[in-house]
């Protein structure tokens, strides 16, 4: 049931506890307890809203940055990752296989802001060798949600056999 509850919350963070209880055939207390436990254990790491900023007529700039770095003795990549992750501009950070070590996604209000972040904060970190900044030109899909939704679902008949 835990997995089912988490999947429902992952799809809709605003789903109500009473609905979760009914869908999963249990009571509200059980759901509340489980959510609390998941939050404490950091199984639920946060609740966010997927905002299509373009439709809100608000300009924000996002970039994906590939970072290559040298691992540290004993600590591997964890220490350097911690430093990068601590910057609030960094939205997501991944250690990846392939040509570079890290991929990070950063949010800013202007291109200048992002350029400054890369030049003054990111690139100077000890152990970072190169960075490659890819500005995001258009967002098509975020967290499973298509941004440019066509209006409405295809229609079904009102009644069928």
């Amino acid at each position, binding site marked *: 049931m835990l997995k089912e509850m988490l999947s429902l919350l992952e799809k809709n963070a605003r789903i109500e506890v009473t609905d979760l209880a009914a869908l999963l055939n249990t009571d509200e207390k059980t759901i509340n307890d489980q959510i609390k436990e998941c939050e404490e254990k950091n199984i639920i790491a946060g609740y966010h809203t997927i905002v299509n900023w373009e439709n809100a007529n608000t300009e924000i700039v996002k970039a994906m940055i590939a970072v290559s770095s040298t691992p540290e003795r004993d600590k591997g990549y964890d220490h350097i990752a911690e430093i990068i992750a601590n910057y609030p501009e960094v939205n997501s950070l991944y250690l990846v296989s392939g040509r570079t070590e890290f991929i990070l996604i950063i949010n800013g209000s202007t291109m200048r802001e992002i350029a400054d972040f890369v030049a003054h904060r990111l690139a100077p970190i000890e152990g970072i060798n190169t960075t490659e900044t890819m500005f995001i030109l258009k967002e098509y899909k975020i967290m499973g949600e298509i941004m440019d939704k066509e209006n409405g679902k295809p229609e079904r008949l009102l*009644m069928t056999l």
Partner: protein
Amino acid sequence: MMIFDELINIQVKEMAPSGIRKFFDIASSKKGVISLGVGEPDFITPYHIREAAMHAINTGKTFYTANKGLLELRQEICNYYLRRFNLSYNPNNECMITVGGSEAIDIVLRAILNEGDEVILPTPSYVAYAPIIQLSKGKVVEVTMTEENGFKLKKDQLKKAISDKTKAIVINFPSNPTGGIMEYDDYLEIADLIKENNILVISDEIYAELTYDKKHVSIANIEQLKENTIIINGFSKAYSMTGYRVGYILAEKPLIEMFNKIHQYTIMCASTPSQFAAIEAAKNGDKDIEEMYLSFKQRRNYIVKELNRIGLRTHLPEGAFYVFPSIKSTNMTSNEFCETLLDKENLALVPGSAFGADGEGYVRISYAYSLEEIKQAIERLERFLKSL
């Protein structure tokens, strides 16, 4: 001016229009109607399946196929039935593709019935069986499945319905409209009766994948009955592919040969791009089935809890995506109930009487809707019940 009435076949003239037709017309003419009356899943067909159909069209795979359907599709269906239901059929001669389960119902009944043959029909039942039996000049012998028995088919009732004219029985588990299922032991109870009387079993298993907390069992899983059984199934409900119109029949070779005779002259073959989509579904669609299953199960839990809360006593059905609550406490017929509900609250449900006389006193509620839609419908239904 021609008098058409004289020119029409008597069986067709006497065929009653479907009981939901009238409601459909009223509901369609009104604004702001919420309907829980739909008999198809609400998911858009999974993309990889849609893509397979588009690829077939793009690459010109749009010629007729073999009458029985693409061999690759028949192979995948036989693999699927073995994998999921532990039943083995030969793709070369024990499987054929039809235009939905609907065509399968038609050609099977036409192929087996002679005038006056009796077909046992456990009711409440899906609306198509009785008219097609009559069109094939067969006689419908209804057997009541009661709520007390979980809408299962019971031996003593079946026994009473059998005569020396009995040719076949049509079963549909999980059931539209009741959501009832039959388990292995339930089938075992009636197995000897069917075998001894040499009855064909037409088993419409279109809702097989929507069996909750249990594994679907086919009557063909009873070893001695496999040769008696004609399985009808399709892609509509399991993969949300209703508009593709792909169904199939699994049965013994001599039967398939006869069905295929009608099929080759009336249909030729099912839509080719749809058949390619169905290959993709049968091959790589198990995960889609799981996801939809889980979502339906959750909504079933939700709606049953809510219906009981607002005072419509409802059992937890074990299959399909319908609940079939009793409305007898309102002292209304199911037709009156649904008409008044539609009139007062703009909520469309299907009256139980559309599924045969045994459905009187019940309504069919489909939960193939979003949680938001179900919530609004429950709100309207609650207000309606309080106003009575």
